C-alpha cells in the first residue's frame, strides 16, 4: 500500500503539490488523473524517491520511503517515455536491471507476449519508439512487484500491444497487486481503474471509487466526470475542504457549497 500524508512540493515560485494526502488501496488499480502540469508526475516521483517532498511523508507497505531505496524492492516503475543508452543491446539493458535486483523472481510473460526475444541482440538506438515502450513495460513487470507505478503506460503502443499490456494489468490486480496508473485516455482508465485520484493545480480534488465519482458528478462516464470536476474547479478557484461520502473525499470549490 502507498500512503502519502501532507505532501507539499515547490519548484521555485511554483507550488507543484499542496498538502496532498492519499491512500492507494491495496489490491486495487488507482488512476491518478488531472490536467497537464497538475503535479501527477511529481507525485509519482516522490513515491519512487526520485524527488523529495518539502513537507509530508511517504510510506510504502508500511515502511518509510527512505534514502537507501530498499523499499523500492516492492516497486515496479514504467516511466512515461522509454530512454535507454542507445548503444546498449536489449539484452544488456535487461541484464543490468536484473543484476541490480538479484534473487528476485522473474516474470517474463510480457517479454514473450511482446516478442522481445527477437530483439535481444539489437541496439536500443535502432528500436522503434513502440518497441522501446514494450521493453519499458517488460522491465516494470519483470520482478513481480507488489506495487506497480505506470506513467501513461500505453502511450506509443500499437492497439495489439496496448491490449496485451491492459490484460497484464488486469491479471496483476487479480493477483492482489496494487497499481497506480496515470493516463490521459479516460476510456482506458475506465476499463482498468477501481479508484480515482484527481489532482488539479497541485491539490487533490477527489479521491475514491470510480463509482462514487460518477455518482457525485452525475455523469455516466469517467471522461464526463473528470471533465465536470475540471470545469467546476476552474470556474471558481480557490478550493476549500468539503468532506467525504462513501469512502470518497474531495475538495470542492467555494461556490459549489458542497
Amino acid at each position, binding site marked *: 500500500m502507498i500512503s502519502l500524508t501532507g505532501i507539499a512540493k515547490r519548484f521555485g515560485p511554483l507550488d507543484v503539490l499542496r498538502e496532498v494526502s492519499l491512500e492507494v488501496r491495496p489490491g486495487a488499480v488507482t488512476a491518478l488523473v488531472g490536467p497537464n502540469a497538475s503535479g501527477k508526475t511529481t507525485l509519482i*516521483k516522490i513515491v519512487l*524517491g526520485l*524527488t523529495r517532498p518539502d513537507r509530508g511523508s511517504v510510506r510504502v507497505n508500511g515502511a518509510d520511503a527512505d534514502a537507501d531505496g530498499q523499499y*523500492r524492492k516492492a516497486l515496479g516503475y514504467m516511466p512515461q517515455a522509454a*530512454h535507454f*543508452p542507445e548503444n*546498449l543491446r536489449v539484452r544488456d539493458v535487461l541484464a543490468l*536491471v536484473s543484476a541490480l*535486483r538479484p534473487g528476485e523472481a522473474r516474470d517474463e510473460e510480457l517479454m514473450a507476449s511482446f516478442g522481445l526475444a527477437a530483439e535481444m541482440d539489437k541496439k536500443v538506438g535502432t528500436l522503434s519508439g513502440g518497441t522501446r515502450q514494450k521493453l519499458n513495460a517488460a522491465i516494470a513487470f519483470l520482478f513481480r512487484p507488489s506495487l506497480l507505478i505506470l506513467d501513461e503506460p500505453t502511450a506509443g503502443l500499437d492497439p495489439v500491444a496496448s491490449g496485451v499490456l491492459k490484460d497484464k494489468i488486469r491479471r496483476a490486480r487479480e493477483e492482489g497487486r496494487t497499481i497506480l496508473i496515470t493516463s490521459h485516455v479516460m476510456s482506458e482508465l475506465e476499463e482498468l481503474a477501481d479508484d480515482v485520484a484527481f489532482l488539479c493545480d497541485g491539490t487533490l480534488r477527489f479521491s475514491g471509487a470510480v463509482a462514487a465519482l460518477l455518482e457525485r458528478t452525475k455523469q455516466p462516464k469517467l471522461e464526463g466526470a473528470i471533465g465536470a470536476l475540471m470545469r467546476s474547479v476552474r470556474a471558481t478557484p480557490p478550493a476549500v475542504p468539503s468532506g467525504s461520502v462513501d469512502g470518497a473525499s474531495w475538495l470542492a470549490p467555494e461556490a459549489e457549497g458542497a
Partner: protein
Amino acid sequence: MRIIALVLEAGLRDLSRNRWIAAYTAAFLVIAEGLFWFGGTGPQVVLSLLNVVLIVVPLVALIFGTIHVYSSREFVELLLAQPVPRGQLFVGLYLGLAIPLAGAFAVGAGIPFVLHLHAGAGLGALVALFAAGAGLSLIFAGVATWIALSTDDRLKGVGIALSVWLLTVVVYDGLVLALAATFGDYPLEKPLLGLMLANPVDLARVLVLTQLDVSALMGYTGALFERTFGSLAGTTVATTVLGVWCAVPFALAARHFRRRDF
C-alpha cells in the same frame, strides 16, 4: 561495490560502441602518428601532442560529458527507481563516462608511441603526458557531470561547459600574464604559483614540461614553478594537486546527485 561495477560495466559497454568516442580515439591516433610521420623525435612529439591534449581533452570531456549526462537522464531515473543507493549509482555513472574518455585518449595517443618505441620519447615524459591527459579527462568529466546536474536547461548547460573551457584553456593564462605585467613591481611569486595550481590545465602543462627539460616553454608560472620546487618536487606537487583536482568536481557532482530532485 557491486552496483558501481554493474553500472560502470554498462557505461563502458555503451560508450565503447559510441561513434563520437571512436572518432575521438581515431583523431588522437592520426595526430600522434602524423607527428611521428613528419619526422618528429619522441620528445618533440610529446611536446606537440601536449598542446593538442591541453586544448582538446578538456573541450571534448566538457561538451561530450555534458551532453551525455543530459541524454542519460531518463535512464538514470529508471535506475534510481530500482532498489539501489544513489551514491553508488553516481560513482558507476561517473566512472562509466570518465573512464571511456580517458581510455579513448590513452588508446588513440598510445598506439603510435608503441609503434615508435625506438623514437626515445623518455619514460618520464610519456607517463606525465598520459597522466595529464587521463587526469584532465577525469577532472573535466566531473565538471561536465556537475554542470549537467546543476542546470536543467540543456542549452544553458552546454553554454556553461563552453565557458569553463574558454576560461581554463584560453583566458586564464592571459589573465595571469596581465596580472604579472600590471603588478610587476610587487613580489608576485607566491600568488602566481597559487594561480597555477588553481587551474588544472596549467598544472597538466607543467607536469609534462618538467619531464622534458624545456622550461623556456613553460610560460611564466611554469618557470617559476620549477625554480621554486625543482624538477622532482615539482612533479610530486603537480601530480598531487592534479589528484585533488580529480576529486573536487567528482565530490561536488556526487553531492548534487545525492540531493537533487529528478
